[in-house]
């Protein structure tokens, strides 16, 4: 058995993979075998490590020659392995951590009956046979109609449906009836309007979650949903987490910093101390850091004043570069175009239920959208004038430009959001100045200390403030998945061992070969006969053809002899003769591989079984 089983395994696996190449229906067999193969390849790394440890530990314990080096191997192996497997010094993955949310544990089974939403439907029964998307499998139940065992009668959803669950469900089947039912179910299983966007239920994390702090009124509303013990306990836990204060004494505060009035329940600034109640949401953080002015178009005189402020420290070239960069930041025209584009009425996407109604009404050519009934909103002359004046005026904040424009003419939410998006994509003064310094010092450019200080002060301040806010953001956050970070995180000990040991060592090992080819060229390559001469001459041409000297040597040849130019000769050798030679070798090797593979699969080659017992 010791010998027959492996022979059978090899033969079966091999032939399965060969068959899958010819019969499309069996592709998944091949996939499965190959995926297993890939898993085994990973386990082979563990085997390799284990083997290494075994060999070197034995050497150390036997005090064999060179055992001290073996000890180094063992120690570096264990250290690297330890920090890598433990993800030492790796912060949790920032995109996996649900920043801004507080989680209270609540399993699907413990969800109160009030959060079970039912939708009577009439859908084909074979839908129930499909595999539901994993994200909703715990929460969605399909039941058959009482009077017809071939049709679905009810869809039942536990908990509030998230938008990604809705899109997963929509993608489950293409039937319009189904998609319409999903839409209705999603509507039914949405949290009450007053809680929308504030509370969520994440079934995959078995957590009732709340974003930001929990106001008294919201808490009461949540408690009113159900009186079951697990629910009440979860709400109490949420209230505790979302009301825990976190304070930070700030080393730096931007001048004129004020807590936005909409955030007064969760953010407090007292002297040098900033306090956040509950976790800080990413939106709060963005709002807090977005306090620095953005660049605006500069008039001719302003640019000149800017350049003059730099004093005579700039060379002529640098001054012109600075003028060019300051003059080409952005202009009012671009913003006007953006706002007018945003004001154009967009076709409205129909809901699936609307499409279904149309289908039932007998419309053949279903269009997923319908034209908007709203007319286009374009900036009027007064608005354009106000905008053009405002962007050039340092006193006006672009953030509040919308309220000015709305008084002068029509102004729709899409335009407001386009305005804010436009504003947020503009660099801050600090970011602009950093770009200016980078451009001015590119190559051999120099800037005196005083100029650097002047230009980089805003950049420094923005950096300090962003770090202050981030520190509070992090301090107020409760880690949910401590192990979710990437094992290669920059700055972690495992990264360190890669960057400062693995990388230089392996790279230098290979670099040594450059010296040995040089030595071989001098000592071993002798034109002893015609064949050896051909080899040497080719190497000579290839090497020379890839230097500017070689190109220069033959650049004088007339066009009729251009094939003799060294770069053309190199190309000819590589793409014709080398191709021919290597193609013949390739064909030979391919035949060899095919025959050895067949030998292995048919049991002719059993060398991998080892010596016997």
């Amino acid at each position: 058995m010791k010998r027959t089983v492996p022979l059978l395994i090899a033969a079966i696996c091999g032939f399965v993979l060969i068959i899958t190449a010819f019969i499309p229906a069996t592709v998944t067999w091949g996939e499965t075998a190959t995926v297993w193969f890939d898993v085994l390849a990973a386990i082979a790394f563990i085997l390799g490590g284990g083997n290494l440890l075994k060999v070197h530990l034995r050497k150390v314990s036997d005090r064999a020659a060179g055992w001290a080096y073996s000890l180094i191997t063992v120690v570096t192996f264990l250290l690297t392995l330890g920090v890598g497997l433990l993800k030492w010094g790796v912060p949790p993955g920032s995109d996996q951590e649900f920043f801004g949310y507080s989680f209270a544990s609540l399993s699907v089974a413990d969800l109160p009956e009030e959060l079970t939403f039912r939708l009577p439907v009439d859908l084909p029964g074979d839908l129930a046979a499909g595999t539901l998307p994993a994200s909703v499998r715990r929460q969605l139940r399909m039941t058959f109609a009482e009077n017809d065992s071939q049709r679905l009668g009810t869809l039942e959803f536990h908990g509030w449906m998230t938008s990604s669950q809705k899109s997963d469900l929509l993608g489950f089947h293409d039937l319009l009836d189904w998609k319409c039912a999903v839409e209705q179910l999603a509507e039914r299983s949405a949290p009450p309007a007053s809680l929308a966007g504030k509370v969520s239920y994440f079934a995959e994390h078995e957590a009732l979650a709340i974003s930001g702090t929990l106001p008294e009124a919201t808490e009461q509303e949540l408690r009113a949903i159900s009186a079951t013990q697990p629910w009440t306990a979860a709400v109490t836990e949420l209230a505790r987490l979302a009301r825990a204060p976190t304070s930070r004494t700030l080393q730096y505060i931007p001048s004129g910093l004020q807590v936005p009035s909409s955030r007064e329940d969760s953010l407090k600034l007292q002297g040098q101390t900033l306090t956040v109640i509950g976790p800080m949401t990413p939106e709060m953080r963005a709002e807090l850091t977005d306090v620095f002015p953005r660049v605006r178009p500069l008039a001719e005189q302003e640019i000149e004043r800017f350049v003059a402020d730099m004093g005579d420290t700039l060379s002529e070239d640098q001054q012109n570069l600075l003028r060019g960069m300051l003059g080409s930041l952005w202009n009012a025209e671009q913003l006007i175009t953006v706002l007018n584009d945003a004001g154009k009425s967009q076709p409205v996407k129909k809901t699936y239920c609307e499409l279904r109604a149309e289908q039932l009404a007998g419309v053949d050519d279903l269009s997923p959208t319908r034209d908007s009934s709203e007319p286009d909103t374009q900036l009027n002359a007064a608005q354009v004038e106000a905008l053009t004046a405002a962007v050039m005026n340092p006193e006006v904040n672009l953030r509040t430009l919308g309220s000015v424009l709305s008084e002068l003419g029509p102004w729709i939410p899409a335009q407001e959001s386009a305005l804010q998006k436009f504003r947020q994509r503009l660099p801050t003064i600090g970011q602009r100045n950093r770009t200016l310094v980078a451009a001015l010092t590119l190559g051999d450019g120099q800037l005196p200390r005083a100029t650097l200080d002047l230009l980089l002060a805003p950049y420094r301040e923005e950096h300090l403030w962003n770090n202050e806010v981030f520190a509070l953001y992090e301090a107020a956050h409760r880690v949910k998945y401590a192990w979710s970070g990437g094992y290669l995180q920059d700055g972690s000990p495992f990264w360190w061992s890669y960057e400062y040991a693995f990388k230089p060592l392996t790279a230098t090992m290979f670099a040594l070969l450059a010296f040995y080819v040089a030595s071989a060229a001098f000592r071993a390559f002798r034109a002893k006969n015609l064949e050896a001469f051909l080899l040497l001459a080719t190497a000579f041409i290839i090497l020379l053809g890839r230097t500017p000297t070689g190109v220069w040597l033959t650049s004088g040849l007339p066009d009729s002899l251009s094939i003799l130019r060294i770069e053309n000769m190199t190309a000819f050798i590589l793409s014709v003769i080398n191709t021919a030679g290597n193609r013949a070798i390739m064909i030979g090797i391919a035949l060899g591989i095919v025959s050895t593979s067949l030998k292995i699969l048919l049991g002719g080659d059993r060398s991998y079984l080892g010596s016997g017992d």
Partner: protein
Amino acid sequence: MWNIVDRLARLDRRWIFLLMLAAVAIPILFELQFDETPTQQARAVFDEIERLNPGDPVLLAFDYDPASEGELSPMASSFVLHCASRKLKMYFLSLFPVGPQMIEENIQKVILPDFPELVYGEDYVNLGYKPGYEGVVKVIMTDLRQLYTTDSRGTNIDQIPMCQGIDNVQDMKLIVNVSAGYPGVKEWVQYAVTPFPDKVKMVAGVTGVQAPFIYPYIPRQLRGMLGAIKGAAEYETLVTSTYIEGTPREIYQEGVRRMGPQSVAHLLMIGLILAGNSLFLLQKWQRKL
């Protein structure tokens, strides 16, 4: 005189090592640099990427490690610069265990500073490494999710916007491979391009060692190839002269910069071959006398 010939022929190899060190070190210290004229192969690679439309998905398979960074990192950063400038959607992955580091380095060197507007997960994604050599290629050609359930940062692949609608590598408009050996360009040609000749197109940047072996695949199985540092320098020149105004940053001149020491060392190699053979002939002549 014969005495000198004999002694030279028996020259300790360490002197030759020293010569090689000097031939590479001195041009680096004095920043010796030459201009590059792109040849047909580099142009073929460049044109293949130029033909794509903004938003087309491109697979960037970076199958190399620090041991061959000297030759391949200039190619890799030029590829990323080119794809990002063309606004292509970039899907990075690697068949080398150290590959994810190479990918991350290129993201930090090229995308973060020069294309801050690109969003991770929407414009580019690092799918990371999977062991299994050619087995990985074989599987992801028909089903990406069998192996790649998450990206290299652990995010579920179904939650990454740019991965929705990508079922397998056949959905890519082009495969760009940077390869240091096995597994690499040969395996991609064998398991990705050859079985799907009408769907899958590929260009590659390879080490000097591999380049001659790959020529037989050009142009039918492989649309274009950059060979060694010379190919890197040519392609780099093409990309930077097209997409960067003024002087490019230092990292976009790595290939051209490294051609300086390269050229001097080539001349040394030629000198060594000539010297070795001259001494050989002189010795042969001496024995006849």
